Each structure stands twice: as C-alpha cells, then as structure tokens.
C-alpha cells in the first residue's frame, strides 16, 4: 500500500506532470499530421528521454502515444486522410460531418470517445496486470522461450499480406538483434570487425530508420513535384448546434462507446492484432446492431464513437502483455519496451517485484494522461486543426532533420546516423516489397531475450532435448506456436485458392463478353 501511494505521489511531481502534459500535447499535434503516428513519434522522441528520470520518460512517451491516437482523428475528420491507420474508420463518418459544417462536433465526439475508451482501458490494465504478473512469475526459461517463439509467430503476420514474408522479416530482425557481444562467451559476434558494432545495434537509430525515415521516404515520393497536401476545411460552422456536443447526443452513443472500449481492450491485450483491427471490428459491430444502419458512412456520430473508443482503448490494453509477460503486443508497445530497456529495466513480471513504486507511478501517469488528453483536446482543438495544414515543404525537412539528429543524440555518434540511414533504406524496400517491418522490429527487440532463455534452457536441462515435455506450460505454448504456423499456412493456401478461382471466374466472364 505504501508503494502504491509513493508511486502515485511520484506521478504528480511537477516534472512528471509537466512532461506527461507536454507528451499529450505534442502527441495530438503529431498525430494530427497525416502520415505520422504514435510509434513513429515515440521513436523520434526516445532520444530526448535519455535525459529524464525513468518515470518521467515513460510518462512522457505514454502521453505522446495517447495524444497521437486521438490526433489521428483530426486529419481523418477534416481531410478524410487518417493521420494514423487506426483512425481510418473515424473518417467514414467524420468527414461527411465536416462537409456539413459539423467538423467541430465530430471532433468533440472523437475526443470524448477517445478519452472514455482510454480511461476504461487504463483502469482494466491497473486492475489485472499486477495479479497476472504474479502468476507469470512462475514461468521459467523454457516457458519464456516458448512464449517468445509464440509471440514472434503471431506477430509475423502483422503488416504484410504473407505470413512467409512476415517470418522472413522476423528472422532478419532476430539476426540483426544478435549482432554484438555473445552472452555466453562475451566475444563479438557478426560484427565484421567493425568496433562500433561490438555492443550491438542500438534500438533508437534502427527504430527511427525503420519507422520514421522510411515512412518519410515513401511520403516524399507522393508529394515531390505535386506541390504539397490537400488543404483541410478548418472553418467550422458558427451555429452552436453544429459546434457543440450536447450530453444527450453523447449519451445516445454510450452503448456503442462501451462496446468499442471492450473490443479495444480484448484486441489490445492479444499480441499481434493492433488498433486498426479493433477500430474496424467496433465500427462493424456498431453498424450491425444499430437500427439506423443506413446512416453509417454518411455522418453518424455513433460511427465515430465506435472507432475512437476502440482504437484508444488499445493503447493501455496493449501494455498488459508487455507488463505481464514482457512481450510487446504491437509496435507502440515494442517502442515502449525499448524505452524501458534504455532506462535499465526489463519489462515483464519481475518489474512489479523489482520496481513496484515505478510501476504505480506509471499507472498514475497513465491516468493523468487520460485527463490531460481531455483538457488538451477540449481547449486546443481549434489550434490542433491547423496542424493538418502545415505545408509539406516545411514539415518534411523538419522531420528528416529530427530523424538525423535524433539518431545522433543517443550516443553522440555519427555512426548511429549512418545506421539510421541504412535502416531507413532497408525499411523503404521492406515496405515496397511487403515485408513486415513490425515483425522485423519485434524480432530485433526480442532476439537477445529469446537467445538468453534458450541458453538457460540448454544449460539447466543439461542438453536434455525433452525438457519441454516435462514443462506443461512450455509444451502448451510450443504446441500453440505450431498450431499458429499450421493454421496460418492453411488459411493462406485456402485464400490463395479462392483468389485463383475468383480470377478464373473473372477471366471466364471476360471471355464470355
């Protein structure tokens, strides 16, 4: 109990309050800019957190992520260009409202739904993470090895249409994550006699290159020579009924909002699915259950509530597997895991035992971030709307230069800038060739822990290859891994066959013409 109060008190220290607030405000601003999302913002700002205390750093990054999730709705509603992938469903009903002059009302609905979803999800995280972590403490190296194997297999399917390419990307991420000092011999491995590689590749330049720089390379491709982005309609109707969101109208969507939050929590707690899935699933459910199905997609507030409550509730829920098992459920959680590691902590069940005060401090910061999101969004909405109109010729040089100097900042080394550029180049091709950079990054982050647990299993079991059969949980997890692989292959075979049949049918129709 003492720990809980001490942690919560830490979270309301002036420095912590200030950085959580700044994180939320910057997050909303960044999320509002099309093409810049939460994980990308975390990658860009992790170097800044080097100079903060662990609690302030994590609070700032969590605030940034929460803010970016709502910020994505701003450009979705005003431009029909979602600032983040998870805001795509918000655009379906938000943009028609903007066309009717009700953009501010739509954004208010998005804000209140985001805050509600986020708050509910944070409370669930607080209630269940610690008890689950206590159970997870009984897991040994065999279980951890099996769990990481399962996570890597599940995550291989994210961000690509092919599980095979996802596994190639995960394998490549593991390989790159193994560069550096080998844990058993303490000798350099795969360093190619480059002394800077002796301590391995830092997460910061790799993440900035893969997440931010490669994305900017792709976005610049679209705008180069085209004179910049479409301008948003930031002029709102002056009529009060078009601007404000009365409690009655908000309350009419309360069921949808609660359902969306629960969907978001369920999806977020499962590694590998992510906010876009939650958002689309919630929107689909809201539409199916509504007596006004025909109004969806034409400017129905319920549609915005469904999408925003679900995607925002994923933020805190995705921390459940991270805090309980040390497995990042999505890209944002992977980046936060990196931030924990930079500050000398290994996310997982031991965190509650070894850093209990810090964990309760983080809980406090999570709750405060929800409150700040409401305040920042409520009073700054009109200003954030202007962010979507920043000319690309000004925005992109700023982002590129921030990538370069962000990579430098970590170790004050230009070598890391070179690493960032290299992974930006690799990331560009991975995106073009449909190889999952998400699987790569999670493989890269989990590789050392995966190898460490394997080494421990080998040493503890004295080379007994049947050790997994003596550990029921590990055996179940390995069986699940195998099941996921087989099921995914089977599904892709069925989907491929269906596609070919459709193609053959289409070709037949054309011949008939």
């Amino acid at each position, binding site marked *: 109990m003492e720990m809980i109060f001490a942690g919560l008190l830490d979270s309301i220290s002036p420095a912590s309050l200030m950085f959580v607030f700044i994180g939320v405000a910057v997050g909303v601003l960044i999320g509002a800019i099309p093409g810049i999302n939460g994980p990308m913002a975390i990658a860009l700002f992790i170097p*800044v957190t080097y100079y903060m205390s662990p609690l302030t750093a994590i609070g700032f990054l969590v605030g940034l992520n929460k803010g970016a999730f709502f910020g994505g709705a701003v450009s979705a509603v005003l431009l029909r260009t979602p600032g983040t992938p998870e805001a795509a469903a918000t655009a379906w009903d938000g943009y028609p409202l903007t066309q009717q002059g009700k953009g501010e009302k739509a954004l208010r609905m998005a804000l209140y739904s985001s805050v509600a979803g986020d708050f509910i999800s944070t409370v669930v995280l607080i209630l269940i993470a610690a008890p689950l972590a206590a159970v997870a403490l009984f897991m040994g190296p065999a279980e951890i090895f099996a769990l990481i194997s399962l996570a890597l297999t599940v995550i291989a399917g994210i961000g690509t249409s*092919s599980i095979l390419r996802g596994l190639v990307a995960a394998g490549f991420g593991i390989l790159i994550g193994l560069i550096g000092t080998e844990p058993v011999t303490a000798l350099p491995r795969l360093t190619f006699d480059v002394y800077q590689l002796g301590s391995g590749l830092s997460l910061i330049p790799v993440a900035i290159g893969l997440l931010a720089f490669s994305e900017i390379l792709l976005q610049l491709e679209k705008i180069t020579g085209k004179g910049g982005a479409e301008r948003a309609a930031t002029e709102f109707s002056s009529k009060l009924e078009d601007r404000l969101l009365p409690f009655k109208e908000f309350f009419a969507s309360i069921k949808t909002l609660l359902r969306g939050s629960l969907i978001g929590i369920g999806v977020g707690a499962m590694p590998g699915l992510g906010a876009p899935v939650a958002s689309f699933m919630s929107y689909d459910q809201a539409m199916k259950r509504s007596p006004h199905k025909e109004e969806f997609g034409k400017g129905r507030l319920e549609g915005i509530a469904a999408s925003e409550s679900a995607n925002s509730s994923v933020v805190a829920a995705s921390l459940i597997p991270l805090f309980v098992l040390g497995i990042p459920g999505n890209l944002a959680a992977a980046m936060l895991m990196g931030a924990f590691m930079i500050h000398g902590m290994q996310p997982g069940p031991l965190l509650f035992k070894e850093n209990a005060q810090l964990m309760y401090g983080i809980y406090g910061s999570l709750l405060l971030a929800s409150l700040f999101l409401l305040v920042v969004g409520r009073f700054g909405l009109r200003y954030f709307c202007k962010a979507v109109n920043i000319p690309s010729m000004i925005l992109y040089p700023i982002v590129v230069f921030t990538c370069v100097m962000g990579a430098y900042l970590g170790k004050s080394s230009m070598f890391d*800038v070179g690493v960032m550029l290299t992974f930006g180049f690799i990331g560009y091709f991975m995106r*073009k060739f449909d190889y999952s950079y998400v699987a790569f990054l999670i493989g890269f982050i989990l590789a050392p822990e995966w190898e460490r647990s394997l080494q421990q299993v080998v040493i503890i079991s004295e080379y007994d290859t049947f050790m997994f059969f003596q550990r029921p949980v590990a055996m179940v997890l390995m069986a699940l891994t195998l099941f996921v692989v087989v099921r995914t292959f089977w599904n892709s075979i069925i989907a491929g066959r269906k596609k*070919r049949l459709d193609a053959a049918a289409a070709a037949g129709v054309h011949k008939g013409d």
Partner: protein
Amino acid sequence: MTRIKRDSIAYLFVIGFSIFMLVWAIPNYTPDYPGYGASAALVPVVAVSVMLLMAVISLITIGIAVYTNKPLPVEESEFPEDLEDESGFTQVGRVKLYHLASIMIPGVLLVVVIEYIGYELASFAFLMLLQYAIGSRKWVQSTILSIVLTAVLYIVMRYGFGVPVPGPQVFS
C-alpha cells in the same frame, strides 16, 4: 514488372543473402563453441534458416503457379501501383530509385562531411539539398528554414541536453 516478378527477385535476394550468411559470415564471425551452453552460432543459424526456408517455399509456390499456368489473382498480375492495404500499414508500389537517391545521397554526404566542415555548415547544406530534392524552389524560404532548423537543434543539443554537436565547431 509484375508483382510476381518483383517478389521472385526479392526471394532470390533473400536466398542469396541467407546462403552468404550460412556459408561465410556466420562461420567466420561467430565465436567458437566454449564447451557449455548452446553454440553462439545456433540462433543466428536458426534465424537465417527460417529466412531461407520461407523464401524457398515462396519461390516454389510461385514456380508451381507459373509452370501449371494457373490463373493468378487479378491484383497480382497487374502492374503494382502505389497501394495501401486496409490497415494502412504496408505500402506496395514501384521503387523510385531517382527519388530514393535524391534523399539518401544528401544524408550520406552529411555523415561523411560533418566530421570535416562541422555541424553548422554541413547541416545547412544538407537541409538546402534536401529541400531542393523534394521540389522546393523558394530559395528564401529554404534558406530561412535551413538556418532556423540548424540553429534550433544546435541550441537544443548544446544547451538543452548538454550533448556535443558533431564535428569541429565553426561558430563556437
């Protein structure tokens, strides 16, 4: 180039890279087995083998489809334009090498020359080149942005974080 051809080239590249790693890089740049635990080469070999296996399976699948002349899904037989999947995650499209080079070359030059001419001049030149590469022809705006950005990050690094700026200091 169709997506099938492009994927095949990528798989061949992955196969070539995996063979290079398995045959040369891992044996030469991995510590010897110390006599306990698992070999230092085990996990790298497993990771590369997974890459190799997946690429081979993918290539065989494509080969069978082409050899048996099975009709390919419509979107795979068309020229891939810039597409975004439903989640907005993966963008698939034509590789624009000229564009890529126009952004990457200033970056590489920055890394190389910053050690000789200092942060201030190198950053200014990098930003000017970058803005030219992305199509900005407003010289006054480009110059002001380059100077302001260089100065702001200089102040943030030097006085905000106390980090030494890279290269020799021109204006210190």
